[in-house]
Structures are given as C-alpha cells and as structure tokens.
C-alpha cells in the first residue's frame, strides 16, 4: 500500500478531506460520487497526481463506499497532489465547486507514507431516524433480542450470486436515543474491514424495520 502511493513519484502532498454527503445527493452511487469529485477537482484546478498506466486517473481514494440512499456527515477521502497547495487555498478552491449537498468539513495534511485510507477503516457508526410515531419500547425490545442472538444467518443477493453470512459478529453495538425534536434514533456501530462489512439496511431488515426508517446517516468512520 505504501509503495503504491509513492510509485509515480509525483505525489508531493497528501490531503485528507472530511466531507458530508447530504440529502440532495444521497441517491448518487459511489461511482457517481467518484466522478463528481474528479470534476470538482478539475473545475477547481487542483494539481492532482495521476496514476500510471493505460488509463491514468487522478489519484483520490475514498475511505469507504456509502450505500445509495444513505447520507454521510463525516466521509473521508485522500487527495494526492502533484504540487503543493496550502490548505486554506485548497479549501477555498474546492469549496467553490462543490454541488449542492456536498460540504467540506475539514482538510488535513497527512504523511505520504501513511497506509491507504480504506485499509485503516475498522468500523462505521450509523444513525437511523424513525418517524415520530415509532415506539422506543418496541424498538428496544427488537434491539435486545437481536443483540442476544448468538448468530444471525442472512443471505444477500450479489452480482455473482447469493452470499450467505452471519450478521451478528458484524454488529458491534446498538443503542437508542431521542432527538431534540422527539424523534427516535437508533445508533449502530458496525464492523467494516477486510473481514466483513455490516450494512445498516441489513440490520434494519433483521430488526423487522426495513423501510420504516426516515433517514440513515453514517456519522463516523472509525480508523485503526
């Protein structure tokens, strides 16, 4: 990973971008989002480093794909720059070109030699907001029984066929709170690494609540 980040030799600065993917862009896919960022950076004339090879691409790396329909308040990506740019300047350049729904939260210079961003992610925290009418007691009941189960065998339709897996070990914790406006919020901390990724919609389905969430937001990517 370290070697691949440096092999072009052209990267002089690595910037970690924390950004929000809001409601207006919640339905665009991860691939669409990659194109959006490439275009933002081109419009902003950010001096990106490019990959080598047959089909060179600007070198930007997302921490983790966000499921379609889910918003994110602290998404992350690393930008590899070919010439140095001061962070306030970069913030200004990028900020002007972001489409509605995308927001910059923070920019940080990180060492070029850090391992790749996706390899550092170990877990993600989601917040699911339900309709006002949702009963906290009922939700707590469902949560307790899910957490009490020794295993939760599920299967998912993948492009290459149906995959069976155990959801239970991927669920690190679940807890409930209320928003100031009185909405019920379910918090989930789910595993996300090479061994497995817990999906919030799968947890909701297991709780018997698929389709009853008003919104799902990823609020934190936990790095190693």
């Amino acid at each position: 990973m370290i070697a691949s980040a440096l092999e072009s030799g052209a990267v002089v600065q690595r910037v970690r971008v924390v950004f929000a993917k809001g409601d207006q862009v919640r339905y665009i896919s991860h691939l669409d989002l990659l194109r959006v960022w490439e275009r933002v950076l081109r419009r902003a004339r950010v001096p990106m480093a490019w990959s080598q090879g047959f089909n060179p691409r600007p070198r930007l790396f997302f921490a983790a794909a966000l499921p379609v329909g889910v918003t994110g308040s602290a998404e992350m990506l690393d930008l590899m720059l070919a010439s140095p740019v001061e962070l306030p300047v970069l913030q200004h350049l990028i900020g002007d070109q972001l489409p509605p729904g995308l927001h910059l939260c923070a920019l940080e210079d990180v060492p070029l030699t850090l391992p790749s961003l996706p390899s550092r992610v170990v877990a993600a925290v989601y917040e699911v907001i339900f309709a006002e009418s949702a009963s906290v007691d009922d939700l707590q009941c469902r949560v307790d029984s899910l957490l009490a189960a020794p295993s939760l065998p599920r299967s998912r339709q993948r492009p290459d066929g149906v995959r069976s897996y155990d959801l239970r070990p991927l669920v690190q914790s679940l807890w409930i709170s209320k928003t100031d406006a009185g909405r019920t919020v379910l918090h989930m901390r789910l595993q996300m690494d090479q061994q497995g990724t817990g999906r919030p919609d799968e947890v909701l389905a297991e709780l018997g609540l698929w389709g009853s969430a008003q919104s799902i937001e990823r609020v934190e990517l936990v790095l190693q």
Partner: protein
Amino acid sequence: MMVDPDVLNCLLPGVEKPARYTGNEWNSIRKDWSQARLRVALAYPDVYEVGMSNLGLAILYELLNGQAGTLAERVYTPWPDMDRAMRQQGIPLFSLESRHPLAEFDWLGFSLPYELNYSNVLSMLSLAGIPLLASQRVGSRTWPLIIGGGTCTYNAEPMADFFDLLVIGEGEEVILELAELFHSLGRDQVGGTSKAGFLQHASCIEGVYVPALYAAEYHADGRVKATVPALAGVPATIKKRIVRQLLPLPERPVVPYVEAIHDRAMIEIMRGCTRGCRFCQAGMIYRPVRERPMPEVLSLADKLIASTGHEEIALVSLSSADYSWIEPVVGELNRRHGQQRISVSLPSLRTDTFSVRLAQMIQQTRKSGLTFAPEAGSERLRAVINKGVTAADLLQTAEMAFSGGWQRIKLYFMLGLPTETLDDVLAIADLVHSVQSVGRRARGQPVQISVSVNTFVPKPQTPFQWLPLAATADVLERQAALRQQLRNKGIKLSWSDEDSTWLEAALARGDRRMSAVVLKAWQLGARFDAWNEWYRPELWRQAFAEQGLDPHFYSSRLRSREECLPWAHIDTGVSPTFLWDEYQRALRAESSVNCAEGCLDCGVRRSFGLAECPVPSVDQ
C-alpha cells in the same frame, strides 16, 4: 403543489438508479416558481442518461432560463420500475428542478429525436395526468400546451393527434417568438377556452405547425389525397425555421450525476453537412451548412472545461472532419488543455487519411478504436447512395490507422439499400477481408474488425422517401450470406434488430391515421420500444390490426412521384424536384457532387434567400 420529498424517499430506495429522479446537478438552474410568468418543462421521451446527452434541449434550457420571467425545468421518462412505483403511490410526473407536477407548467416541450420513443411520450403525459389527445385538452380547464420539436417533426403525422403545436426546424428563435406571443396575450388568454385563439396566432409564426389546423384527406385505397388548412389564414405549407448564423451554445450545461450516454462537454462546430449522402435524413433536413467560427469554438471550450469539469470535449457535427478549421482547432485544444489531460473527441470521422491524422492528434481515441462508415460494399452501390468513398480510400485509411497504432477498427454498413443485390452484399465481405489483410500486413499480427450492419430505413424528406423498406426475407437472406462469409477469427459481426426496423419505417413514413395505432399500442402496454428488453412487437402488430391499418402499407410500398406524401406540407427548403432527381440519379448509379464542389440547386439557397451557400462564417 410540489411533490413531497418524504413521499419520494419512500420509493426511491426501491428503484434502479434513483439519482435519475433527484436533480440538483451541477449547473442545473432553479428559478423562482412564483415569479415566473412562463413555466416550461423540457421533456425527453427516453431515460435520463439518454436525454441528458441531447444538445438541443440543453440549448433551449439555457436559452429559456436566460429570459426574465421565464423558467425552464427538465423531465425524462421514468424507467418502468419508477413508472410503476409512481402510479402505485399516486405521484404525478414532476420536473427535476422544483418537483412541480408537469400539469402545472404552461408548456411541455418534447424533443422527438426517434420514432421508437413515441410510446414514451404517451407514458409521460399519462403519468402527468394530462389527457393524451390534443382534442381532449380543451374546455374550461387549462392544460399545458404540448409542444414537439426535433428530427421526427419532419413527419410527425403519426403523433399529430397528441401535440398542440410542433416546431419545424431550429427552435432557438421560434421558441422566443412563441414566448413573446404568450406574454402578449397573457396566461389567461392562452389556456382553456382561449387555447384555440393562441394556436391560430401561433400558426402564423414561421416554423410553427399546429396539426389541428390542418385536415388530411385520403383516397379510397388509403393514400393521402392532401393535407390542407382547415381554416382561412393558416399557411398551406409549414416552412422549417433556420438561424442564419449559429447562435451561442450553452456555457454552463448541466453536469449529470448518473453517467450519461455521452458524458462529455459538447461543442456543435457545424450544422448541416455538405456531403449529400442520399440515404441520410440529417444531411437533407439540416441544410444549409453553417460553421461556428474557430475563435468561438476555442473560447467556448475554455469556458466549458471551467464550468463543467468534464474530461472530454466532443466536437460534434454531421461530419466533423469537414469543418474548415478542424485541424487547427484540435491542435489548439490539445495545446491549451492537454496538460490537464482533457481529451478531444470527434464522433463523426470520414473514411480518409486526413481523418486518421486527426485521430492521431487525439490520443484518447487510440484506446477505443476507430470507426468508419463505408455504408455499402460495392463501388456501384456507394454511387447509388452517393457515399463518395472508394475501396482504395478505405484500404488506404485502414492501413494508416493500423500502422498508426490502432488494433481495432469498426466498420458501419447498411443492408437493404435501393437496387442492392446479393453481389453488393458479398462485396461487404470482400471489403472487410481486404481491410483485415491490410491490417495484418501493417501490424505484423492479427487485427480486430467489428462490422455493424444496419437495415436501411428510407426516411421522409430524402431522395429515397418514395422507396420501400427492403423485404424482411431478402434482408434475412443477405444477413445469412454475410454471416457465412465473415466467419473468420478477428471479425465481429452485429445486426440491427429486424423486428423493430419495420415499426421504425412505418412510424417514420406514416400518416395521421397512425396516431390511433400509437395510442392503441401504448394502451396495450408498449413502452421503451427503442430498448430491446422492453420492446414487444406483438403489441404493435395487434394495434395495427385493431385499427384496420397495415404497417406494410406505410413501410414497404413503393410510392409514385404523383402520390401526395403524408409530409408533403412540411417544407424543408429542399425541393421535391431535387429529391426526385437525386433518386433517379441513384437508380442510374450516378453520383452527385457535394456542396463544397458545386451547387446542385437543392432549393435551400433560394428558399432561405441565402447570398452564399454553404453560409460563410461571420469571421471569414
């Protein structure tokens, strides 16, 4: 009332590519609904990714939104999964920008680029809760004015019953004149019972065709006798509109989130084509040739790159290698933007070494392969269609391409051309084999050749408009012969779908009575007919049968010089005499000079009072 986002949020997670329906794209324009005196929805009767690639609607979008008091928003055909979900939830079709139901707009303007999109127009009207037939949209309630434009309007008779008004030709000026008329009469005087008055006024604007103001009369055998004005003061023929000089193009086009079919910045460098290929409808209806001055192209490219962030700029036209300044433009674009890795593409190259040289200047195309369109296999048949390309041209071009580094070439041919024999078709195989051996010699290794063979559909307003579509049995026999001959390794052969060709031909050449067939087919369930996975030819066969019409009467009948064609009242400026003469020269396998070599007096110059044709650019 705007469609409630919470309601949408319930169904969007369940449909494919939900971002097709959520708007908010970069450069999309959101004007104040309540302040707008004219609200226009620009509609494309196909899915988002296809519609977003259309330059015509992008031009009108920026043009209309640039007018004070006018608002334009976009809408595309919901994919069948979304259509179903919306109908279940009772959500009417809405615009992407403000999510207002289409029925609340003053105008609903459809682009009609392709006959096999027709059923989608009805799907969209129906999902919007708008009565399908123009004759149903009368009375006290005001419905949006349903306007059509684009290539199919040169014979839109099969859609005549659904549209209030069609714009024939280039819409940039007409649409503003219509807006002016709308404002001068006031919104109250346009809808409901006053609609007829507005349409009558509109019919006097050059390029405006109000189908309801014309009556079609028929002979006993079903041929059209005449299409005549039903009211005094309505012009007998509708002359297409052109702009004398190409108007500025959008500088801030909408950048889609969902990847469009042509996901790139587009610059129309030239309108019209000098070549005069006899099969080509675009070449006839987009006359005269007008070029965009080079400084404008270059400055627009700078602006588009800055405003969109696209990594590719396409220089579009019917034959981009014919653009007077093509080489310097490509060179300068490379010089200015190559550093930023922005590539230039030329979607329509000629079969000559100049085009290969251009392609070499554009590194991007190296990856994808080069495409050439000899269209016919034999020298004789290429003379018939007036495609001025020789076998020697093609082989020389191929040699230069292969030795220049390309490993793959794509060749386009047509099957079922007028006067075609089996020998002409076998000549395609010979030509492909020659290209293959040229490639092997040039590269010292096997090369890849893709051969795409489409069945020729004779289109209205062309020299071949009188001719029938080739008989299916002949086409199948010739396809089989070609398949037999092109079995070699390294050759990939693909066909057009025979089962939709007949429908395209019937709809392209149909008369007004076919509106009932279109309606019936839609009622039976026809949707997305341009998509193989949705096209159901049996529904169309049933619709024809139930309406007592024979598709072959429209698609496969040789028509005489005397016959009044269903589109005879639409005047493209190209004279029927010229088209007929070209047809006769085709039958004699005589080629004609192209517009750059000499004037054949096609009629356009006189019709539009042009001092010079092709029209010189203002910069010259």
